[in-house]
């Protein structure tokens, strides 16, 4: 196991950000931490990074108990933080070389790795640029390149693609899949369910500091939602739909002006809803987003 978390609690004063969670991460896998704003994702990964002490419980990373004193852990992991902390006073190249020194990487090896990482991330021709001359996507790729400088055994990414355009997001996914292909273990937090589905072998869905579910993305979708979802918008009332579907087995959830029908024999349900002249009907494959919303609730819950 690369990570073993057991009953981890993290408090800030009276506020409990992480409320007794347990999970583990196997070597070579990618695990996603999902959860609404304030769920405790960043608080959790900051404990794993050994930059924030746990209040109680234990977190073992690379077989060592995570603590502020655990320099060995920090030396062997790479971190892409949620908030950009590239050094605005330094050029792209100096950002990388200065960072390499923090890890005691000999200059010659550092230079080779920096060359390799910058070209892997498509930044080779920006080495002289200052950070404020880079686009948001370039900064994020530089953060990833920087996180790889120490050839880590574990890469922790806190919302690696938030705020990026779809093209850039796909580019980053490609690169992360490449890293995973080389056997790198990854933990990532994200608000994009598609990102989790594309990259993660398993996801941990959190809310209010607790874990709601852990599982493989597809298995969770199948179990909690089914294969497809039928959305009926602008419905008159849920009772009418229940009447139309009488006798069939299905799951139903209402939010705002939409009824979501799940877990069903799709053909049979479709036949009934079309026959009953309901309109604004959308039939689509079920996704991790349905799972997420089902578990964490559809309304504002912060």
């Amino acid at each position, binding site marked *: 196991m690369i990570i073993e978390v057991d009953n981890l609690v993290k408090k800030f004063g009276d506020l409990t950000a992480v409320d007794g969670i347990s999970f583990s991460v196997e070597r070579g896998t990618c695990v996603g931490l999902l959860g609404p704003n304030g769920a405790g994702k960043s608080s959790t990964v900051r404990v794993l990074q050994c930059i*924030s002490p746990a209040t109680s419980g234990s977190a073992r990373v690379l077989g060592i108990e995570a603590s502020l004193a655990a320099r060995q852990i920090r030396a062997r992991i790479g971190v892409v933080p949620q908030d950009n*902390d590239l*050094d605005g*006073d330094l050029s792209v190249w*100096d950002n990388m070389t*200065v960072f390499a*020194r*923090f*890890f005691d990487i000999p200059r010659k090896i550092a230079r080779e790795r920096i060359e390799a990482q910058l070209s892997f991330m498509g930044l080779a021709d920006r080495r002289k640029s200052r950070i404020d001359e880079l686009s948001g996507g370039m900064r994020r790729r530089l953060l990833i390149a920087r996180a790889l400088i120490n050839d880590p055994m574990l890469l922790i990414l806190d919302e690696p693609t938030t705020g990026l355009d779809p093209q850039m997001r796909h580019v980053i996914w490609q690169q992360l899949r490449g890293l995973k292909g080389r056997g790198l273990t990854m933990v990532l937090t994200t608000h994009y369910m598609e990102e989790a589905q594309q990259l993660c072998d398993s996801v941990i869905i959190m809310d209010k500091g607790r874990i709601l579910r852990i599982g493989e993305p597809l298995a969770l979708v199948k179990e909690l939602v089914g294969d497809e979802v039928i959305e009926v918008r602008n419905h008159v009332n849920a009772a009418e739909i229940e009447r139309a579907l009488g006798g069939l087995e299905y799951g139903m959830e209402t939010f705002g002006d939409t009824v979501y029908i799940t877990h069903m024999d799709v053909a049979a349900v479709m036949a009934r809803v079309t026959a009953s002249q309901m309109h604004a009907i959308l039939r689509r494959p079920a996704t991790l987003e349905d799972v997420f919303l089902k578990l964490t609730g559809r309304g504002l819950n912060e």
Partner: protein
Amino acid sequence: MNNSLASVGYRTYYVWLRNAVSYRRFILPTFIASIGEPLLYLVAIGIGLGSYLGAIDGMPYLTFIAPGLVVSAVMFTSAFECTYSSMVRMTIEKVYNAQLATPVSAEEIVAGEILWGMTRGAVSGIIMLIMLAIFGLAHSPWIAAYPILWIAVGFLFSSLSMVITSFARNFDFFTYYFQLFISPMFFFSGIFFPLDRFPPAVKTISLFLPLTYAVDASRALMQGNMGWQLMIDTLALLIPGFILFVYALHRMKKRIIK
């Protein structure tokens, strides 16, 4: 507290190095600023005011104030570096955040910042001394011992300023520090007037101002009056400096780690 000191290792140098690499871009502008300020004091106060005051303690006024300027320049630069500049790095540029995610410890970040404050202070001291030499005011062979004094003064004021930064909620806080502590110290530590000409109350206060000992030591070096007092002066800077250093490590760590 012992723990804090034990966490300070060689990576302190890497934190210092980061600041040095970033400083390369600013060498010229800060160099010009560092020459401008001493020139102002030397010309306006030393030559202008000095021509009215005549001799103090049997020496021309300019000769009297010169030693104080060599150490007050160190004080101002170190204090500025470890308040405003450190706070920018900590809160705006998030430099400490990035460093924390590496094998560098929180204590090494703080120690590296203090070492850098001392470095900047020493550079100001050197520039001031060169200016004085150009004005023909520095010829004692004892000026070779200045590095010790610069280290002691820089260590004390960098550490003190780091403690101030650990308490600062915002940048306004530093205005109070400079206006209520650093600037008064500049005027009441015997740079511009001999301490025995102050009223006794002021003289007593000045004994609690660390810069007083730095000025005294600097005068001894520049005039070649070596004696026991120089030892006392140096200890009067190093001992509180060390206590503040350990306290700064402790306080700043609490502020950086959440």
